[in-house]
Each structure stands twice: as structure tokens, then as C-alpha cells.
């Protein structure tokens, strides 16, 4: 674990390169999307997390070797009735985490639909990770690891079982995504100002927006 990514303050050691990525979380209501993000961004967990209405927007930076990877995270509402709004959030995303609850088979089926939709509609080359959340409730499991593992392998997804409650695999899944995202743009340094994703149209077809 020598090379483990740790969330760091952006005003810490200046890395050589900053890459910024848009990441979206999708999945059925109450599977733990907001909790995963809260654990990743703030290291906190709440037994009862307020329902997300519309979406929440968060940022977090992790460091991989000398590259600072800044995630702009869109945490979406889970209720299926709001499905038609999802494209607004995954449009232009370079990465997605599709979350299900390992104690609830229906949420896994729903996750598969999200994966299908992303593969068809989202930015080509989008990095998709599948997260089987609530690993702390392992004794109540209804989705077997093998089943998800196989599904993820067949569909080219990153896969981890996570627990926002115990923090198992939470940083790890974001780190795995960061590693898989292409960071091969010109090696600009961070000093060149913050020209961010001014227009979603400008960068969306590229899978990376290193500056």
C-alpha cells in the first residue's frame, strides 16, 4: 500500500500536473451514493443521510504520484422517476460510479440498466466503476460478489465492494478511477491559471482535461 492515494489539500505540496475530471454517481435511491461521496470528500458518515433532491456538487482532489487529480463530483438523486434528468448530469462526464446495495438485488438490476445507458449515451471512453455498497451489512447480502465481478468483467467496468460506513474501499475506488483515466495530455503545470470546463461543449469529447 506504499502508493496509496490520500486526499490532500490543494494548497499543500504543489504537484507537477493537475487533471480535472467530471465524475457522476448513479444508482437507485438509498443505495448510498451521497454517503460514499461524503466519506470520500469529508471522511464522515451519517446513519441517516438526507435524500438528495436534484443533485449535489462536490469537489475533491487526490494525488497519484506527481499528478493531482481533481474530481468534480455530481451526486444525483436516485428516485427512478427523475431518470429523465440524469443525462444532464452525466453529459460530459469522464467517469461514473454506478452504485448498488449488496443487500438488495433490485438495486443491482437497476445498476445494470445504468451501465447500459452510460455505455450507449455517455461520452465515449467514459470510465465506469461499479460499487457494491453497504459491505458492512455483509451478513444480509443478497448480491453475490462473483455475480457482480463477472458482470463487471464482461462489461469492462472497475468493480469494488465498498462501505461508506466503515470506509472500506471508498478512497480505493476513486483512486482506481483516477488511475484509469487518461492523463496523457500536454504536461502543463498548474501555474497556467484555472481555465476550467468553461463550456461543457468544449471538453466533453475528450476524456481528459489536464491543464
Amino acid at each position, binding site marked *: 500500500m506504499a502508493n496509496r492515494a490520500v*486526499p490532500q*489539500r*490543494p*494548497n499543500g505540496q504543489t504537484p507537477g500536473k493537475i487533471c480535472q475530471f467530471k465524475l457522476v454517481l448513479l444508482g437507485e*435511491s*438509498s443505495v448510498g451514493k*451521497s454517503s460514499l*461521496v*461524503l466519506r470520500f*470528500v*469529508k471522511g*464522515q*458518515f*451519517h*446513519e*441517516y*443521510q*438526507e*435524500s*438528495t*433532491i*436534484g*443533485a*449535489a*456538487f*462536490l*469537489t*475533491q*482532489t487526490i494525488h497519484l504520484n506527481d499528478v493531482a487529480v481533481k474530481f*468534480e463530483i455530481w*451526486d444525483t*438523486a*436516485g*428516485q427512478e*422517476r*427523475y*431518470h*429523465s*434528468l*440524469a*443525462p*444532464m*448530469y452525466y*453529459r460530459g462526464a469522464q467517469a461514473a460510479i454506478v452504485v448498488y446495495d449488496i443487500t438488495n438485488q433490485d438495486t443491482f438490476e437497476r445498476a445494470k*440498466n445504468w451501465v*447500459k*445507458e452510460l455505455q*450507449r*449515451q455517455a461520452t*465515449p471512453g467514459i470510465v465506469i466503476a461499479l460499487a457494491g455498497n453497504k459491505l458492512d451489512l455483509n451478513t444480509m447480502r443478497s448480491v453475490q460478489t462473483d455475480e457482480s465481478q463477472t458482470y463487471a468483467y464482461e462489461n469492462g467496468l472497475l468493480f469494488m465492494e465498498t462501505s461508506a460506513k466503515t470506509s472500506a474501499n471508498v478512497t480505493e475506488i476513486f483512486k482506481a478511477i483516477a488511475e484509469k483515466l487518461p492523463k496523457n495530455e500536454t504536461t502543463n503545470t498548474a501555474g497556467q491559471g*484555472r481555465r*476550467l*470546463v*468553461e*463550456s*461543457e*461543449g468544449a471538453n466533453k469529447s475528450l476524456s481528459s482535461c489536464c491543464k
Partner: protein
Amino acid sequence: MFYSDVDENSFVDDNSQNVSVKLYETEWRYLFNITNIDELRETAIKAKLRTSRFRSVCWRLLLEILPPDSSEWLMAIEKYRSLYETIKSTHYNDPHTQDSGPDDPLSQDEDSIWKQYFKDIELKKIIEQDVIRTSPEVEYFGTKKIRNIMIDILFCYSREHPDLSYRQGMHEILAPLLFVLHCDHQALLHVLEQTSSDVSDLIQKILDPAFLEADAYSLFNIIMEIMKDYYNINDFIISAQKPTKHVKTTSSTCDSEVVQKLSKIRDTMLTKHDPELYGHLLDLDISFTTFGLRWLRLLFGGEFLLIDLLVLWDAIFATSPQDFALVNHIFVAMLVLIRIQLLKSDNTDCLHYLMRYPHVDVMTVIEYALHMLDPKMYMLPSVINSLKHDKSDNIKSNITEHRVERPSKLITYAPRPTRNAADDLLELCRMKLMQYHSILDSAVPIHNKEARQALTGMLELCGMLSSRQGIIEMGKDVVRSTTTPIETLLTPDTPEGGPLLPPPASAITMKVFRKTENSTDSQIQGAPIKNPLKQMKR
């Protein structure tokens, strides 16, 4: 001015209990012995219901659940209560307890009681998922009783409106309604505890805690009637589209009424009232749907502290009970109030501000919104001009430091302690203090910041002195004085055009709350804030 009618001598009298009852009834008479509902509207718009013990009655009157003539109130309220009973009994059908004839649990027949029964169970599960996550920091919403009431109300509403059914967010419209009713009930119970029979029968019937659920339903139902467009989404299933190589999913996939409304706010209202900000947000390609959907669906419930939110709702219900027209203006006012921050920000930082709206003075929002609605009737708050014309950093526009964590919306539900002589003394002190506050408040000019702060301090003391029982404490207002630099041109406590009404011996007390979490470098926008001390409550 609920208190001006009260005999001065009664305060000198040691019998503080009589005073409480008198104050209570005086407030009632002040609010409802009116010939013209416009007077009540003015009261509501000027934030004078902030500490009222009859807000739930005012809302019912403003929203026309209660007719203007108070002699008809009992009949009206009984009608609504029995209507709810009927609705509830219609939708609570347990086939286990009745002879379903040829119908059976596996039936796929549309009319099958069993099929409906299983669908209802699913629906309740979906509702419950949100209900149990309603304001987790507030114990009141964590009780089994309140959770069940919320589930029943939302379930009945969904079954009554099958086209819309239940949608996430509705539970957060319902929660403040229950809370306001509950506060009024508690205030009444408190007064009744002090006197055997002096409170009028009408008050007791209107605020009968036994009808919390039915009364909350009628309020919720009438509010949702106007808000349902915000919840309607054309459920356009993307996956039904032809799989093309690279579909640009544009807004056309969800140009529902709420999205159209947001476009209208942007393209006709913001562009008129602040073309510079309009252009800036357009240049940055900020979609109004990303943040506006929540603003509208929760009727700004996610953007304001509860105690400010209720004042905002007072104004909405008072000004435009038919269509909530003020909502659009509030939306624009909220944008303009943070224009300096937005104009300085890039796409990401703008989203941070909009997805997690900073703390602003709610009275300025209301006053500016009213001005846009009716410029002849309502003056433009002076701070808006400064915001638009002075671009220096000196103008802070009543905004607290960005990224200050918000305190939890409202705080704890304290168990009832027994009342003793010390409590009575405290209560008397508190009322005297409020009386002095009231006198000074009308005499101290708004520009005398130090004196105004001292006045705010007096209010804080009133809150701390409160020993009242069974009470919801709200931490809030006072937060402004701990987090705001001395910028409070207009504080909610001192609405222009009228002196402050001191908090009555109501069920509401205030407390000072400070930031509980250290902010980190990362920012959470739109994510709910928790009080970490209470997160593990059962």
C-alpha cells in the same frame, strides 16, 4: 405589536401565568379579529409571524383553507378533517380483513384489491426511504409517530394523485408544515397548563393536536396543488431512444414544466433585472436546472435555515396564494443578492455558490422579490443598488463568509421538565426583557449598528432565559450575529416599516449555535449538513 394592548400593570403583577394567557389571546385577537385579510397579509410579509404561536392558523387562512369569516372556521376545519378520514379509509384496504370474493393474491386484474394492496406496500416502502431521512438532526422527525404520520399523508396524497404519485422532495415540503402545526399545538398546551379554562373553544378546536395529521394533509394538499408542476417531469426514457453513436442528450429530453419555468426565470426575468449576471451565467454555461430544480421543488427549503424558510413561506402564501407568483421573484432576488460573488467566479465556483447557497438576509430577499413583483407598492431595498453599482469588495451583501458550514436547521426536542418557582421567575424576567426590547427597538435607528447588536443580544438572552417545556428549540437567527460581520443593514428582526415583535412566550426559543465542523479544503455543495454529535441517533 401583539403586546401593546396588554395592561402594563399585569407585568408588575407577580402572576406571570395570567400574563401568558393574556398575551396568547391578545395575539390571537390581533391576528384574526380583522375585517380585511390584507392586514394579515401585511403582517405576514413583514415577518411579524416569525414568533407567532398561530402561524399554522395564519397559513390556513392565507391559503383559504379557512374562510375569511372566523365564525365559519369550525365548520370548514371539520369538513377538511372528515374529508381526510374518508380519503384515508378509502386507500387503506387490507384484503386480509375482508372477503375478497373471487379475487386472490396472485390476481393481475386491474381492479384486484390484492394487486392494489401489494402496489401500496411498494409505494409505502419508497416513501419510507425518504421519510426516515427527513432532517435527521431533528429528533422530532425521528420519532415513530411522526414518521408514520408522514408516511400516511404522503401515501394518501400519492393515491389521490396517481399521475404524479410520490416524488422525492415532497417529504421536505411536508416536514415544515408538521413542524409549524406542532409548535402551535405545543404553545397552546403550554398555555392550557397554566390556566384551566380561559382559552377560547375555537382556538382549542383549531389547534387540537389530535388532528395534526389531517390538518397537515390539508395544508400539504393545497400547497402541492400549486407546486405539482415543479414535480412533473416528462418521464422520457432515454434508453428507448435509438442507440446512435453519440447522442447529445440535450435539454429536450426533459423540457418539463419546471424546466420551462426555469428558462423563463432566466430569459425573461433575470435578463431584465440583472443583464450582467444573466450574461455571465450564460457565458459559463451554467444550467439553471442543476440548482433551480431543488430551489423550486423544496420551495427553497434546502437553501434557508428553517426559521428563515418559514418567514419566506409567510411571504409567499401572503402575496400569491393562488399561484405562488412570488417564487419566481425570490429566485431572481437570491441570484442578484450573490451577484458579486458569482461575477467573480468561474464555472466551478459559481456552481459551488448555487448548489450550496450561502446564508443571506431573508428579509432582503423578500423585500427585493416584492419590489420586482410590484415596484409601485414596494421599495427597492437600498442594498440592491449598492450591489449593482459598487463592485468593490466592500459590499458584502449581507452574506456570511462563503463556505461557513450551516448549523443544523433546527435543533432539539427537549423532554418536559417539571415547572417550579425558579422557572416562573425566569419566565417573568424573560417577558420583562422582551418588553424592554420592544420599547427600545422602535426607538433605536437602524443605522446605529452597535445598539442594534445590543438589541439582538437582548433577544438572545430572552431565548436563553426560556425555561419552557416540551419545546422545539431553534438555533438560528442568532447565528447571524456570530458569523456575519457587522453588515446587517436589514436584519430579519428589524423589518423596515415596523418595530420588531418580541418573541412571545411561545413554543419557540432560540439558541446560539456555532459552527460545529471545521471546514476542509474540499467543498460540499448541496450536500446536507449534519450535526456530527447527533448523527448516530436512534
